[in-house]
Structures are given as C-alpha cells and as structure tokens.
C-alpha cells in the first residue's frame, strides 16, 4: 500500500478506464504481427516518430511559398505531392495530394466521411473533431452551418466546394492571402497560416497569427 497522507489540494487521480474492444484488438494484432516477425517493435516506434515529425508548420510553409512565388503556386496546384517534395516533405505512403485553391468565387472544405483520411505527410495528425462523426456527417450535408459554427460566414455568391476524401488522394486547402500583408516576409506569412485554414473551416486573417 502506498501512503496517502498529504492534504488534498489536487483533483482525484482517476485510473485509466479499462481498454475498449478496439484497443484490445489493436494490441492483440500488433503482438501477433511482432511474434510472427512481420513487423518489429522498432518499426512501429519509427513510424510514430515519422508521424510526430509532421506538423502544421510544414503545410504553412508550403502555403506561404505559394503566396509569394507564382511559379511554385502553379506547380503546387498542378501536382501537390511533387511540389511538397521540393521542400523535402516526403510522402511515406501511396497517397497523392491535390491542393485546392480558395478564390473570391470558391471556398473549399475537406472532410473524410468514411474515416479520417487527412494530408498527414504535410499536416501531421488530424484534430479530434475532424475524426468525430458530427463533423464527418455534417460537413457534406450542411457545410454552411458547420462553417458558421467555426465562425466562418461565406457569402451566398461564393460556392462551397466540399471534398470528401475517401480513397487514394488527400487534400490541402490553399487559403487566400489576407489583405494588408503586402510587406510581410515569407516567414511572417507562414505564421498566419493555421491548421484549420488548411482544412478549410476558417479563412486566414491577421488576428489568428502571431505576426499581428
């Protein structure tokens, strides 16, 4: 028994709940694969490290470059994967990347209704709400209401284009460069670009970033 004689100025420490059905299944399958020598624990750890090395900052760099370099922007829109690879952003899986450009006439929004497809090589892991059923179901059915809940009002004369990412292609939204950033450096621009803007649930604005 551990002693427990201090005053209680911290919340009660709650043990982790019992693992769920799918957690147990994942552990069982993983242990079997390791036991059969199909994969090694080192490979699993390495892939987690690969995923953790991918963050929103990579996508923000790509967007900022597209804003300042029209030739890069053209290459990015023509072949998203090849253009990201110019930055050394490798694609460790078989996915392609299509970059969707927001304009005065079109606002793009990304969702994966079936699961959680997401441009992980460029943005890292998706936020929890992206994987949750309410977002996945509602983004394709009432995108304007979903956007409004993120604080984003899109005028009716602008088309909402929802891309449901279901198969081999991943999507990245190229947001519009905000007004008033003419004198910004590429680094200052990159600091304005948030994850949510590259999913398409918000626009990039000067208040969001650190370069106000």
């Amino acid at each position: 028994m551990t002693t427990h004689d201090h005053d209680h100025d911290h919340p009660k420490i709650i043990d982790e709940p019992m693992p769920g059905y799918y957690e147990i299944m994942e552990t069982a399958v993983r242990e079997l694969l390791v036991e059969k020598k199909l994969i090694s624990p080192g490979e699993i750890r390495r892939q987690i490290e690969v995923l953790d090395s991918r963050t929103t900052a990579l996508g923000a760099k790509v967007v900022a470059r597209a804003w300042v370099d029209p030739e890069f922007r053209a290459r990015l829109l023509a072949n998203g994967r090849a253009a990201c690879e110019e930055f050394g952003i490798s694609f460790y899986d078989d996915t392609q990347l299509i970059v969707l450009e927001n304009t005065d006439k079109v606002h793009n929004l990304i969702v994966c209704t079936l699961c959680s497809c997401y441009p992980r090589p460029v943005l890292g892991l998706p936020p929890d709400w992206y994987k949750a059923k309410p977002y996945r179901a509602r983004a394709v059915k009432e995108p304007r209401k979903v956007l409004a809940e993120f604080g984003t009002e899109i005028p009716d004369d602008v088309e909402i284009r929802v891309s449901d990412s279901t198969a081999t292609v991943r999507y990245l939204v190229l947001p519009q460069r905000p007004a008033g950033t003419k004198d910004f450096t590429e680094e200052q621009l990159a600091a304005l670009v948030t994850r949510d803007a590259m999913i398409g649930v918000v626009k990039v604005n000067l208040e969001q970033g650190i370069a106000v």
Partner: protein
Amino acid sequence: MISASSTIQIVKALGEEPAFKAGDRVRISVRYPVGHYRVPIYIRGKQGIIEKILEPAAVNNEEEGFGRNAGLKGWYYRVAVPLTELWPGYDGAPHDRLVIEIFETWLERI
C-alpha cells in the same frame, strides 16, 4: 533505333485507358458488395459530372478491401455532385457542391 511506326496499331486492353473524360455525366452505382470499398452510402444512386481523371491508375478498392493489393488497376475520378442533388431541401446556395473520388467500376454513363 526501335520506335512504334505509324503503321503499327497498338490495341489497348480494356481498362487501360479511362472510360470517362472530364465533363461526362455519370450516375454512381447502387450496389452493396461485402467489404470496405470507399463509396459512402449517401453518394450511391446520385448523379454528377466527371471533374478530373486521377493519375495514376490505382488498385481496385473492392479487391483491396480483401487485402489483395496488387494486380488489377483502374481509374479513380473526381466526381462533382451538386449538394441540391444529394440532399433534397438543401438550403445553402444552389451552386454548392461535393466532389468525391469514385472508382470507375462504380460509375454508369448517363
């Protein structure tokens, strides 16, 4: 130098070239095969327009659903479907639309 002269007719195998092109009108099939094949229920039976052929050709998803990741390849398309076609009573703007990747075996010409 060996080159295909203009007198040689290369006959392409079925499925080697995409069956649809951008602008074609299509319907997404209503089928319920067993397995995981990346065609959400909500899109089946709906009509849309081919926006783009996706390169390169990819493994047939119905095969892949059973772990067969090599062999038969085919074409994915980005298919645009108006949200008013998807959801009767959609009250956003009439030009709002969904674009989704659909494998060729799920598309019917209309």
